[in-house]
């Protein structure tokens, strides 16, 4: 028997898949789980060697410090403003654009679509200086407006692309029969297409929200005060400047990652569908 046959035999057993999967998943989840555990340790315990894996005496000390003694709440508010603003702009603009590109083709709509895809190639980092020049000229450096505009640049084409693939799958007959019944095209879009595609639209909105929340580069370059800095940047400076205290770093990390983890637990199916939309049918 060749060694390959032996390996193949082991791999083909269903139990092997489970065992391997559980090992890999444990490794994938470990950083989140142990960061969560560390955030409940006392400061003393975080400096012990060998490190403890579970908190010996769970305490909320680190969270208390992060919430009351660090500017994290302010950054949380900043991030919420930027994120909600971006999501609103991206969705309001993206819905109509995507619907037009999907259901009402015109001469040149293929080119428009291509422009949208091509913009994804432009690396955000290479536009740092042009944006800096533009934003300085408009006196928008260090404002929420600036961050909302830049995040719109980052996620808008993606949102249009995902929404378009949802609209592509929408049965055209439904729209046509509504129009025959006397609906205007915009009315048909708003009162028939939108409610029926609500799940897909929600997924795109959630993805946009999460990406904006997690964004770091533009937040770091285009803001310089705590009143505007988003939470990712705030956490970076907070941790870099003031802390080598692992319990607080862990608590800060949990704070920043929490919205993503919560959203993801609730809407995972829809998010996955959104991310793979368009790619599947090619």
């Amino acid at each position, binding site marked *: 028997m060749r060694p*390959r046959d032996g390996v*193949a035999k082991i791999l*083909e057993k*269903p139990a092997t898949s*489970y065992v*391997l*999967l559980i090992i*890999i*998943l444990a490794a*994938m*989840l470990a*950083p*989140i789980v142990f960061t969560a555990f560390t955030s409940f340790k006392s400061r003393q315990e975080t400096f012990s*060697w*060998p*490190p403890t*894996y579970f908190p010996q005496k769970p305490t909320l000390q680190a969270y208390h410090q992060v919430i009351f003694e660090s500017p994290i709440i302010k950054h949380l508010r900043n991030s919420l403003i930027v994120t909600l603003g971006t999501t609103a702009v991206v969705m309001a603009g*993206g819905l109509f654009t995507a*619907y*037009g*590109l999907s*259901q*009402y*083709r*015109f001469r040149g709509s293929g080119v428009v679509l291509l*422009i949208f895809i091509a*913009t994804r*190639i*432009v*690396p955000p980092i*290479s536009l*740092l*200086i*042009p*944006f*800096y020049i533009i934003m300085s000229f408009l006196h928008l450096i260090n404002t929420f407006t600036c961050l909302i505009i830049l995040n*719109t*640049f980052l996620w*808008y084409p993606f949102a249009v692309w995902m929404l378009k693939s949802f609209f592509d799958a929408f049965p055209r007959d439904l729209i046509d029969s509504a129009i025959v019944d006397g609906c205007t*095209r*915009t009315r048909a879009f708003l009162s028939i297409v939108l409610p029926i595609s609500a799940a897909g639209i929600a997924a795109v909105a959630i993805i946009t929200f*999460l990406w904006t929340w*997690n964004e*770091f580069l533009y937040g770091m*370059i285009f803001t310089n005060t705590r009143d505007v800095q988003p939470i*990712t940047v705030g*956490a*970076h400076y907070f*941790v870099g400047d003031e802390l080598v205290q*692992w319990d607080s770093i862990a608590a800060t*990390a949990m704070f*920043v*990652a929490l919205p*993503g983890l919560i*959203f*993801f*637990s609730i809407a995972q199916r829809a998010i*996955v569908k959104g991310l*793979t939309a368009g*790619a599947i049918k090619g």
Partner: protein
Amino acid sequence: MKISDSKYGVIITTPGLIIIIALVVFPVIILLVTSFLRYTAVYPISFTGFKNYRYILNDRLFWLGLQKTVVYAGGVTALTFSGGVILALLLSKVTRGSGIFRSLAMFSWAVPLVISGFMWRWIFNPNVGIFSDLLMKVGLISEPVPIFSNRILAMLGCIVADAWVRIPFMCIFTLAGIESVPRELYDAVKVDGADCFGAFRHITLPLIKRMVLVGLLITSMITFRTIDVIFSMTAGGPGRSTYILSLYLIEQLWLRVNYGTGSATGVIMLLLISSFAGLYVYFIFKKE
């Protein structure tokens, strides 16, 4: 008067197009223009031709950054690819509890890259982290490894922290590809006597190739220009061993305050990524 369907399409698409032109096309034009200007804090702005490009191409740090970027992006892509595909293959085999397994596999996607940097910085820390401790318990090493004072290990550490966030995306892409393969095909090759390697090579791989290529393209393009993890883990150190091009560009803006050379760096990165993307697209469409 009723407007035609295609005119209606133009009307509702135009605002989006204007947004995209204002936010992408216009800045790209500015980028191209400033890359040919002497644009610093000290002298008045003037045209310098290719001087900025010449400066960069003669700058040792640029080439160092490019080299580190290629290693970094290559490493992250390789790790993301192998991790994502293996995970997807396993997930496609598992039937009981597959829903739970799938959601657990994708959690790290939601973690911001900066935070991933923090998490792994703690894990790899030789004084308090669990990585060294685990390896010592297993008996692989006898004393803690100082990951971040070793040039190669620091790079590897950053690659792991970055790939960890990206594996789920690669995984769902591959999984979607695998699930579009009809079950009967596998039964057919089983009858012909193929083992699981044969089935993977002759059926799964050809059919998911396109999907995987798209995933690879996206991953490599994004990691080529990323910065978050390196910023929060090593900030380019130790001794510029993780000094990627993005850091080089930020230095032009923050330290040297030279918008001309910074823009030229941006143009070069844009060209590199576009040619890369073009190559991929060419290979994907050539086969059909």
